[in-house]
């Protein structure tokens, strides 16, 4: 097992990784920018290194400084968390080349899955269901129009290097395609540095279902069931749950089988997530693979009892999978609310000083957060400040518990999305599980 791990991240996920390392008896090194020198993740670690100024590109994303920090502190491995360098194939490759273990999949895995169009192509060639659309990158508008006419409108144009909703355009009619194609290319270029796009059929009111997968170096792959991430605002997830109210045992087995086959096809290692789109007739289509631990991993932990971050570290250290597929049991139901430092109506980030902070507690309530009374939410990074997770014996209990816990959560000094979450969990359709990715827009519609 590793002796010392550098955590190349900040906020709740850095603290989460440090907690896992502590429980495994591994020493930790925190990195931080000048804006985060007083942050909780820094104080929780055994050592710490300042790697640059507040701007993430000069600190948390600064590969030379992060690797130098790893070298001078003599760590065996680096955990990238999510975001920042987590899906940077070059970073993973450099780590490998200098003999520091990158806790995540191989750099080849990351590079391949980072090219969404290529990934679709590989999966489709294996005979697995992908969303109807173009295979590979679209070279020009003509190709786009051909593909769109073949599958029928509406279609969605996506960046091959994309993620987080950037570089996406929905096109309802043939005459809008040209403008949308150019706009998506321009946004892809400016956001990801690569203008490549592809297109898929656009489903109305689909569900976003993803399957958590674990793979060891011996090529064994298991899945830990699905997460339903249909509550989104502009493709940004806000609430996640496991299991999905739309997935029964049979569909779960089928999703799991396809996810495992997809991961085996690309020789995937470590933890990863296979994202699917589920339409109203419960047909599912492969969308993409996320090659990182995800923000919403706790809901899977709550229902399976498996510590995904510890498992991730063990797998990276070369240990074989400690669980067989038949030992994976999903018990009860779990929700996660992403508490962001944002205006709950306008979604404008709201940095500032947290004057009061008290997280809810009690049975079935988990809080992943690096917040504390007096902490400052700095404007340079993601606005996620806490993840409130509940578990109950069934969906109804998990909802009741979330409503109770949201009411107990005290965060003052800044605006948060707590009121929005309360609105969601008070909604009757949500309580019945009747949701799709358009749910939130409808809820918020005036």
């Amino acid at each position, binding site marked *: 097992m590793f002796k010392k791990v550098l955590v190349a991240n900040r906020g709740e996920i850095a603290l989460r990784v440090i907690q896992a390392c502590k429980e495994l008896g591994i020493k930790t090194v925190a990195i931080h920018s000048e804006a985060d020198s007083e942050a909780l993740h820094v*104080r929780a670690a055994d050592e710490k290194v300042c790697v640059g100024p507040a701007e993430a590109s000069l600190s948390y994303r600064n590969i030379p400084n992060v690797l130098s*920090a790893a070298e001078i502190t003599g760590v065996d491995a680096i955990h990238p968390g999510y975001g920042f360098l987590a899906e940077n194939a070059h970073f993973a490759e450099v780590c490998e080349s200098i003999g520091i273990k990158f806790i995540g999949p191989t750099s080849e895995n990351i590079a391949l899955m980072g090219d969404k169009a290529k990934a679709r192509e590989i999966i489709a060639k294996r005979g697995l269901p992908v969303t109807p659309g173009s295979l590979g990158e679209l070279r020009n508008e003509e190709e786009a129009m051909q593909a769109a006419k073949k599958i029928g409108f509406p279609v969605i144009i996506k960046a091959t290097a994309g993620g987080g909703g950037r570089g996406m355009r929905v096109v309802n009619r043939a005459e809008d395609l040209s403008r949308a194609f150019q706009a998506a290319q321009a946004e892809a270029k400016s956001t990801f540095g690569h203008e490549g796009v592809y297109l898929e059929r656009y489903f109305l009111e689909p569900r976003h279902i993803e399957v958590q997968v674990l793979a060891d170096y011996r090529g064994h792959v298991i899945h830990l069931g699905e997460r339903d991430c249909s509550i989104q605002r502009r493709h940004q997830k806000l609430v996640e749950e496991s299991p999905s109210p739309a997935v029964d045992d049979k569909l779960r087995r089928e999703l799991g089988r396809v996810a495992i086959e997809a991961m085996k096809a690309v020789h995937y290692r470590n933890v990863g997530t296979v994202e699917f789109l589920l339409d109203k007739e419960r047909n599912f289509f492969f969308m993409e693979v996320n090659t990182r631990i995800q923000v919403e991993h706790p809901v899977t932990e709550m229902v399976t009892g498996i510590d995904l971050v510890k498992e991730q570290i063990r797998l990276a250290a070369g240990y074989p999978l400690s669980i067989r597929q038949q030992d994976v049991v999903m018990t009860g139901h779990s929700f996660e609310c992403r508490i962001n430092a944002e205006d709950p109506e306008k979604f404008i980030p709201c940095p500032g000083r947290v004057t009061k902070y008290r997280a809810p507690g009690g049975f079935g309530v988990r809080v992943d957060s690096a917040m504390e*009374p007096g902490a400052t939410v700095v404007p340079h990074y993601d606005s996620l400040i806490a993840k409130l997770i509940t578990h109950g014996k069934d969906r109804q209990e998990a909802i009741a518990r979330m409503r109770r816990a949201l009411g107990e959560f005290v965060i003052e000094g800044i605006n948060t999305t707590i009121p929005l979450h309360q609105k969601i969990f008070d909604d009757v359709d949500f309580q019945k599980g009747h949701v799709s990715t358009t749910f939130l827009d409808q809820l918020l519609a005036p």
Partner: protein
Amino acid sequence: MNTHHIPSSKKRMSRRQPAEDTDQTGEARLLTVEHLRQVQDLITLLRKNNLTELEIEQQGFRVRLRYEVGVRPATGSLTDTAVVPPQGNQSLVKEATPSEEDTSGLVTITSPIVGTFYRSPSPDADPYVEEGDYVKKGQVLCIVEAMKLMNEIESETDGRIVKILAESTKPVEYGQPLFLIDPKARA
């Protein structure tokens, strides 16, 4: 827990300034440690209650406190933040930096990258500079090795090396002070 790196000297000065102010105001009456403690108590009271002003006078001694929005530094110097027990969290900067008085007017050369600090170009070579040396702007002061690359760090000013703050062959982090230079000193 030690602070692991030091902000630029300007920032630090503005934080300490009030200490000197209060020393000067105690002209009519010599301020005792007790007085200062009580003033601190009053400040705490003011802050706890979100007041903007608090004035107390007794037997010729008057204290008036005012709080103006936006004046306070983001990270409160009176640390309201909850602190996780140290548990041996190690900073790369082991020693306390010289006190304010020493650095006022001095230029601090900090490390622009994370790496290993070397005072000489090779193990058997002489150091680039020693304390007391006079240096020119652009003169190489040391090397910080990162990613197997030797990065030469140059002086930002003419002046005299007052203090070398890092130890050769030891790791340094971003922004860590390496040299104090007196720009007014001339050879």
